[in-house]
């Protein structure tokens, strides 16, 4: 299992569009990927739940990756966040 923290820099936060892209990215991996904000933890591949977190600019989220391809998944999600959010 691998985890990392990430602080959102996009001024609009995780709204519909980035959430869709994030969910799509997360689906590409076998590993189970979860996103935690505060006390809520959701599956990164679940678009609706992801939007439900209501992540804003400046919020810090914790990403947890667990599974067979966790190395690639870890890098993949990290790169995605750095490039898009």
């Amino acid at each position, binding site marked *: 299992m691998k985890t990392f923290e990430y602080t959102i820099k996009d001024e*609009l936060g995780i709204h519909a569009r980035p959430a869709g892209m994030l969910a799509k990215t997360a689906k590409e991996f076998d590993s189970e990927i979860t996103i935690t904000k505060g006390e809520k933890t959701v599956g990164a591949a679940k678009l609706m739940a992801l939007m439900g977190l209501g992540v804003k600019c400046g919020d810090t989220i914790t990403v947890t990756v667990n599974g067979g391809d966790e190395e690639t998944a870890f890098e993949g999600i990290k790169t995605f966040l750095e490039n898009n959010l």
Partner: protein
Amino acid sequence: MKDKIFGVLQRVGRSFMLPIALLPVAGLLLGIGSSFTNPTTLETYNLTNIIKEGGLLYTILDIMSKTGNIVFDNLALLFAMGVAIGMAKKEKEVAALSGAIGYLVMNTAISALISAKGGVEAMAANSTTTSLGITTLQMGVFGGIIVGLGVAALHNRFYKIQLPQVLSFFGGTRFVPIVTSIVYLVVGIAMFYIWPVVQGGIAQLGQLVLESGYAGTWIYGIIERALIPFGLHHVFYMPFWQTELGGAMMIDGALVQGAQNIFFAELASKATEQFSVSATRFMSGKFPFMIFGLPAAAFAMYRAARPEKKKVVGGLLLSAALTSMLTGITEPLEFTFLFVAPVMYVVHCILAGLSYMLMHIFGVGVGMTFSGGAIDLTLFGVLQGNQKTNWIWIVLVGLVYAVVYYFVFYFMITKFGYKTPGREADDEETKLYTRKDMNARKEAVSAKDGAAFDRVSALILKGLGGKSNLSDVDCCATRLRVTVSNPDLVQDGLLKESGASGVIHKGNGVQVIYGPHVSVVKSQLEDFLDTAESDNVDALLGETNCEAPKQEEKTNKTEGKAIELYAHMNGTVVPLEKVEDEAFSSKVLGEGIAIEPSEGKLYAPCNGKVDMVFDTKHAINLVSEEGCEILLHIGIDTVKLGGKFFETHVSDGQEIHKGDLLISFDTEGIRNAGFKTTTPMIICNTDDYSSVEAVGTGVIATGEKIIEMK
């Protein structure tokens, strides 16, 4: 064929907008600056003490005048570049460079011929000018347009050209400036012989007008207006304003020649009881149609624009109308309808000519510094008193003109369907490809042998991990430089199969080495990325080794009876593929359907519960009784409104029933703020269903069935 010509003309007209957008500002600078640095004006109003040559105020006004003027002086260059940019299909920056080169080369060729034939003195009077320091023929904006259109044609034809290997460095976009310089060298030589004939015709027309009375004034007016598009009106009226052609008169014991000179001499003279209409007949006619007529025409265009475009168009037209009214710079307005509706311009010319004639008949004696705006009317008409100028007729005729222009323009636009601003068929240009188009293309590609290029691009794209993996594509002398989101998806084998001699990885950067013809490869790839089939390279390439990470198929599809969702708004159904936002149209978020609302109310499409209302109130998540996850998103990009124009009527966790009002919003406000109100309904957990089918079409009312899922 007719449609095609019309389409091209429309694009030409639109390509003028970039340089034209600059004119109002330049016009204001020039108008204010030159009026108050004109010695006659200063003396007339006893401003010589306040605005002194060399003084601060004078210098500022002078700078305004000159910086404004430089734009008009170089309008031809701006058009050469602007039109080339507007008409080029791709790689527009190269077209801009080529436009500048074409313009310089053409004028330099003309210049060289002028000196070879004996210099400016050997040419007809007033037929030459200096442009960018080059002595050349007076061609006005028309010279720039010749360059712009020609360069764009060359550019679109050659920007992907492939040259033999040894010369391949000069291929692709690099070839465009090269071929432009050679072609315009020849065009310049041709123009040297052709253009004087055009100018000769103009000079003869001037003579004709002078010999006639009222009718002559009318013809003068028509010609003056008709020459505006060619930039030749200055050539035409300057002789009337500045030379004996416009009359000669003894004023205060001195012989004064030229209409404008006569007017300003009379203005300065204390003996003047009334301004000579024989001189102002060449000027006063501008006021009624510039201050009243054209702004009314602008209003007609605004009224005729489509509702959702009115905001944008209103701004454009208002600034153009104000410019015409205040300064008498009419080009911004005239050019907006000249190219899309030449017939309207003909009508405009006739009415403008009539305006000159009416001013002549009513004995109006108002002159001007350079055009007929309200500033000049005030300075040289109103302030001089009605006894001297009869300026009241300008207002009387002007009011009639406003009415006439408004109704004539509105009638013609709506009757003949002219594509004036805000009426363009932009759905044709910004068309989003539907699945049907894509299938048709796929068949076309597989049927065609000559699809080799697409295959190379498809290989590259697949090798780079697909369209979604690309974040940036560029090239240097020999390498394609790409930034990808996930470098692990890059497959070197495929890239080499596409003709690359090597691949270099650096973090997220990937360099694919092709050699000097890389700029062609890049252009082809960019073209390919714009096509619909690039979304689906795998299908296109068939069985070519495919080890892209496959997502596990979900098997626990919801079994049983169909789930139905009902229209979430009153309005017109828009298929999701046609929504003008890739996040929705590409179905990244899931399947669904959109509605263009006819009123600002969003209703529940089923029974269920509110999962979350977005802070920004523009979207809401629902979970239906059956567990279907639904996103309702009002408008496109409306997250940026930060909640303005929206009002929510439900809160998180609340139970809802089909048809409950969820959110109300101000459609006008949102549209006026520049956003679309198209409202997609997305099934976020599309993967849980074996099919999600959009069944609603056309005009729909809340409660009608719109989606069926199994």
